[in-house]
């Protein structure tokens, strides 16, 4: 055995071939299951890709490191479901790149924060969290109120996500900027209809930060927070049903 191995060590081509064979076996065992990944995503109605404004909000969320203190995954455990509502489904984060599950909870889980607070609460809470929650240690994010949301290249952002498998259509990419403006109520007349047609009639169109005139990062991040956990039609969901 040892003598045979000596041959292998002395012949570089042979060694290369055997290394490739060995790594392939390990690789196959790790990679092949991923081809069946979609079978782990539960069929649930209502999940749509983020609108351009929500996506810009997610960018702000990631940039500010919100995931460092807030998770976005309600585990299927009794106490979590009691507190936050229905446990998170894989389908609910299938269009998140990267996903925001997180594992650190200095602050509460945000997977179902959408619709829980009013826009003006979010605005004031971002500017001074302690005003409403005195015991909170969240820092102030008041700069979001005065910074313009980064929307100039939002179309190419959608395009890039399409490569990863998010089903953005050509018209979504083409109208990304207009849709973002329309959702923050800053668009030209009639642009709202296009947005609702592309992303569904439940899309929230509001001046999120309450300041007319420009689309701030607050507009973007609040639009993102307000849609979190609200898309899936959980009333019809049953984990045992396989489609």
């Amino acid at each position, binding site marked *: 055995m040892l003598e045979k191995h000596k041959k292998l060590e002395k012949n570089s081509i042979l060694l290369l071939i055997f290394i490739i064979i060995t790594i392939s076996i390990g690789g196959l065992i790790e990679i092949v299951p991923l081809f069946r990944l979609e*079978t782990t995503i539960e069929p649930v109605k209502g999940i749509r890709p983020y609108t351009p404004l929500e996506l810009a909000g997610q960018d702000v969320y990631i940039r500010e490191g919100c995931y460092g203190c807030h998770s976005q995954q309600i585990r299927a*455990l009794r106490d979590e479901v009691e507190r936050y509502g229905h*446990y998170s489904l894989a389908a609910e984060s299938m269009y998140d790149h990267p996903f925001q599950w997180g594992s650190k909870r200095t602050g509460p889980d945000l997977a179902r924060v959408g619709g829980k*607070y009013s826009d003006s609460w979010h605005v004031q809470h971002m500017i001074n969290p302690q005003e409403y929650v005195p015991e909170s240690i969240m820092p102030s994010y008041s700069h979001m109120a005065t910074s313009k949301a980064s929307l100039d290249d939002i179309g190419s952002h959608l395009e890039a996500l399409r490569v990863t498998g998010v089903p953005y259509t050509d018209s979504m990419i083409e109208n990304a900027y207009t849709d973002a403006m329309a959702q923050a109520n800053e668009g030209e007349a009639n642009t709202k209809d296009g947005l609702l047609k592309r992303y569904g009639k439940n899309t929230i169109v509001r001046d999120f930060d309450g300041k007319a005139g420009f689309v701030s990062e607050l507009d973007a991040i609040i639009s993102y927070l307000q849609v979190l956990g609200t898309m899936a039609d959980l009333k019809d969901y049953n984990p045992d049903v*396989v489609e």
Partner: protein
Amino acid sequence: MNPSNNNIETQDDIGTTGHEWDGITELNYPCPRWWVWIFLGTIVWAVGYWYIYPAWPVISGDSERGGTKGVMEWTQYKQLEESQSEIFSRRAENLEKLQNTSTKDVMDMPELYEFAVVGGKSAFKENCAQCHGSGGGGAKGYPNLNDDDWLWGGSLKELSKTIKYGIRSDHKNTRNSVMPPLAAVMGKDSVTKVSRYVAGLSKGSSSTAEGAKEYKQMCSACHGVNGEGNRIFGAPKLSDGIWLYGKGDEQQIESQIKSPQHGVMPAWIDRLGEDTIKQLVVYVYSLGGGE
């Protein structure tokens, strides 16, 4: 090591690995026996684990989700259901009673009342405290729930409606009202006069007769002739010292007339459900301001 005796084979009867690099050889100590047995044990354990629990992805039709199910058919969802059923069964008796009792009658049944208050309190902490304060004391723009100054009413029925459908929420049954910006209609002078008049109202001073005419004309339809407010529109009482957006000074009143602020409360019926809302109603009522 003794420099005169550096041949390791002569030091020990372990033997070497057989490899030799320019005269250097390596001792071949075996792995500790306990370690080897634990290692082999984990492999056997894994096989048993695959048999019992879900483990391997399977290449089969699309109808199968996940992979092998294991003989126990364990899933985290079943585990959740089991752990929930334990607490649900403990709650069931009181919950059923609560469902079949009107909120009004709950107030007279000490045991059920306590059940509702405890449940309501915990739901309040998770869902309401962020705006209304952990003790219901309110914050700027969010009403205090401990006092008897209600915008939309503090009876059990009105509380229930407010919590279920919200205020200016996106629910179709929501409470709704909008104070129009009046500065353009009233003119600058008039706004100043009315602001002074309203500020006076809350301090109970009758000396500020100036502005009374304008107030009657522009404001009294919703806020009442004497500033008593009107719960049909959620129009706040102006004749008391309780202010939602400030301290009731002239500047603040002026800014509200120019660009009115409106509170928004989400509708909770879809998120919390009837039972929890019933508990919340009883809890909020119990805070002291209930009517």
